[in-house]
């Protein structure tokens, strides 16, 4: 077996992984990034909207500051965020945007003079300041007091990821693509790297690393309808969970995006609503102002998603062969705007739905979109439970987003957290030595190899991996979607336990040789079901509604009992995650209060 040594191993080469890698490589250490796909195909590339940073150059962002950004973020999180992390993030974000500009990101810039912008479906005029001409511009996103989202046309994720990968190539960061980590090498106290499977050949390799970073993105694809790329199956999280000592934070906090298209679940950007797109029902009536008179379509994502489901439940949804949906209307934004500023949206409509958004309405419904939960780390990015293990970006619960993250904060988090955690890893590596036990490596590799052989030969059974996945999809769709309740969740946990048992008996229908997708999924499947159980069990225990976690039977946000973070770990041989809890934040700048949107009652913390 090939053994590769490196100072830092990153599992994932999207924005968070590469940003960390650049920081660590820049400090003179060796870095290898693993990626399921060529780095530039990572899911970061799909983010259309942009990155929030309080630069305050645009006239509609006039008077913005990290303080305002902080308030928006903590309110958006429904007070689930770690406020110290949120403070670090908002302070660092503007500098990071400028750094990206220096590295080559073509951010859109302020053009002095009068412009027509859109808000809430209505045009208005505003004059950009002459002294800000040529500085980084920003646009509106949901849940923010100021226009704060830096953007590059409507391909911010693409523009930043390409720039980041260019920078990584310049610094000699090695990316091993088509490589999948299948387990972490550890001794229960220290992480020593990973056993990795080559997705071209199927062979196993060992990567021994002084520091290992999980930056593998979210777990959206445990759901059937998700806007995420199909590789976002939470593999990095399951590897951490499988150590038995690392912990996953707030796995029940799953965000649903209001505008996933029907039937392909492809996201159309929140920028559509930011620029003035409106939501209509079966009568082509604009209903959001009735629920949210102030913010209307621009309330935060969890609120808009909930209002949409609520409105569909009154019988106002549009019936289609693919289920019920509502309409997104951007027709009034005009040809020039739609064909340039919203070009990706235009292309999605034309290419995937066969409709022209200039003349036709876009079918949309709330769709799984973002995973707030992840590998729980401290503010430095170090994972709980295992020395030498770190996490950043969507795969981490750092915890910037609490129970709901704001549009534009996730893409910004990848680079801001990537920079901060990368610097911390470099510092960690400075004075750190460890000993690698060849026995641990051999045992880990032998265990993974034996498991893979049993799946290929069908020694444990002939369960179809696709049937197991369908069963998991069905359960999550009923029990752990936008609205949740005790009855469905109790059933869901039990049903998932049965699916987890079935997942131990998966056997291949094909030969499993080479770049075989059936085998790759079969290897991941039991871990995906464990993540689903963390979501469902955590959601069942959390008897309140907070951010994106909405319990019909417990509609209040309960600060008295639940102003905390769920921590899930998986003990060897268990069939349920072990849950414990910690306070949401030990540093309090903004005491719990009303978000100012979303309605709902609050049970205050006991004074």
């Amino acid at each position, binding site marked *: 077996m090939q053994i590769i040594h490196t100072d830092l191993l990153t599992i994932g080469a999207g924005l968070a992984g590469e940003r960390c890698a650049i920081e660590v490589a820049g400090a003179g250490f060796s870095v290898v990034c693993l990626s399921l796909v060529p780095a530039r195909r990572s899911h970061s590339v799909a983010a259309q909207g942009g990155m929030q940073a309080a630069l305050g150059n645009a006239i509609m962002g006039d008077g913005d500051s990290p303080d305002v950004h902080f308030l928006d973020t903590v309110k958006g999180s429904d007070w689930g965020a770690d406020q110290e992390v949120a403070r670090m993030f908002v302070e660092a974000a503007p500098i990071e945007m400028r750094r990206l500009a220096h590295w080559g990101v073509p951010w859109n810039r302020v053009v002095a003079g009068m412009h027509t912008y859109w808000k809430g479906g209505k045009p208005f005029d505003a004059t950009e300041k002459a002294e800000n001409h040529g500085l980084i511009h920003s646009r509106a996103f949901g849940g923010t007091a100021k226009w704060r989202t830096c953007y590059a046309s409507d391909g911010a994720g693409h523009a930043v990821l390409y720039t980041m990968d260019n920078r990584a190539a310049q610094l000699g960061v090695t990316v091993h693509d088509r490589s999948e980590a299948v387990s972490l090498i550890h001794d229960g106290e220290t992480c020593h790297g990973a056993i990795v499977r080559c997705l071209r050949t199927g062979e196993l390799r060992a990567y021994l690393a002084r520091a290992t970073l999980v930056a593998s993105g979210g777990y959206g694809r445990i759901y059937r309808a998700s806007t995420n*790329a199909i590789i976002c199956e939470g593999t990095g999280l399951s590897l951490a969970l499988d150590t038995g000592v690392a912990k996953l934070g707030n796995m029940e906090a799953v965000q649903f995006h209001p505008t996933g298209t029907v039937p392909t679940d492809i996201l159309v950007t929140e920028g559509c609503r930011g620029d003035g797109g409106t939501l209509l029902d079966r009568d082509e009536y604009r209903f959001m102002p009735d629920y949210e008179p102030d913010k209307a379509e621009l309330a935060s994502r969890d609120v808009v998603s909930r209002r949409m489901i609520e409105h569909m439940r009154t019988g106002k949804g549009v019936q289609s062969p693919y289920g019920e949906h509502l309409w997104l209307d951007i027709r009034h934004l005009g040809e020039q705007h739609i064909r340039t500023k919203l070009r990706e949206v235009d292309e999605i409509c034309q290419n995937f739905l066969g409709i022209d958004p200039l003349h036709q309405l876009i079918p949309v419904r709330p769709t799984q979109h973002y995973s707030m939960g992840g590998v729980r780390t401290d503010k430095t990015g170090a994972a709980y439970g295992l020395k030498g293990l770190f996490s950043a970006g969507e795969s981490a619960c750092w915890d910037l987003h609490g129970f709901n993250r704001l549009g534009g904060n996730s893409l910004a988090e990848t680079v801001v957290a990537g920079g901060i955690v990368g610097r911390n890893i470099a510092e960690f590596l400075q004075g750190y030595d460890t000993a690698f036990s060849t026995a641990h490596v051999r045992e880990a590799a032998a265990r993974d190899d034996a498991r893979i052989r049993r799946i290929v030969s069908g020694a444990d059974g002939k369960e179809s991996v696709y049937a197991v996945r369908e069963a998991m999809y069905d359960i999550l769709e009923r029990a752990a979607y936008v609205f949740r309740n005790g009855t469905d969740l109790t059933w869901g946990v039990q049903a998932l336990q049965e699916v987890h048992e079935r997942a131990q008996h998966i056997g291949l229908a094909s030969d499993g040789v080479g770049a075989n997708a059936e085998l790759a999924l079969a290897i991941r499947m039991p871990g995906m079901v464990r993540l689903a159980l963390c979501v469902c069990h955590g959601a069942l225990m959390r008897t309140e509604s907070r951010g994106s976690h909405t319990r019909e039977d417990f509609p209040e946000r309960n600060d008295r009992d639940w102003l905390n973070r769920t921590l899930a770990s998986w003990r060897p041989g268990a069939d349920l995650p072990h849950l414990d809890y910690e306070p949401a934040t030990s540093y309090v700048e903004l005491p719990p209060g009303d978000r100012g949107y979303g309605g709902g009652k609050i049970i205050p913390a006991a004074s």
Partner: protein
Amino acid sequence: MQRSLTFNIFRHNPQDPASVPHMDTYRLDETDSMTLFIALHRLREEQDPSLKFDFCCRAGVCGSCAMVINGRPGLACHTKTRDLPDTITLLPLPVFRLVGDLAVDTGTWFRAMYQRTESWIHTRAEFDPAAQEARMENEVANAIYELDRCIECGCCVAACGTANLRPDFLAPAGFIRVARFAADPRDQRTDADFYEIIGSDEGIFGCMGLLACEDVCPKHLPLQNQLGYLRRKMGLTVLKKLLPFGG
């Protein structure tokens, strides 16, 4: 009326010594809004789990799923079956190394391209975290973005006559990358520096002008325009080198 589609799909597994390249035939009933993403996944999950192909974003932005569809390179995820005849023939992209069936190794090819074109901003300026960002005209930012929209799917490379004949050809995807940095005022490389990269038969002078690259680009990038622009620019650079009073 619902059609029954016939798929002829190239099969070969380079990891299996017994594998011989051949075509397999599958049948599938067409459904509304069916794309090749939907069709291929149904074939894998319902008929043949050994089928190998690549998808990632399935939304036309990541460039994973390029293949030759009825003779023409394109992205499978945004190809609707309703735009195709009853019989659909799928082949892997040429030029790139085969991973298996319809999956090819674009990653290795493109990483070599970054190294060759030095696909990053060359500047002596240091980043100052305390300073305001350097200003840029919005039109310049937009122009760079337009050239930066390549998704590295490999369609233009697969459709390129020269790239199919000579493996060392930089190909349209490489030229548009150079054009992107040449248009960026932050990159301090001169025309002479760029000439070193592309001023040869493996570079822009190897293009036979067949124009297929632009025809097949799923992002509709101005590949020919940029090639013409680079050729004129490089021609001038050569002239300047030849003339005694040149720069």
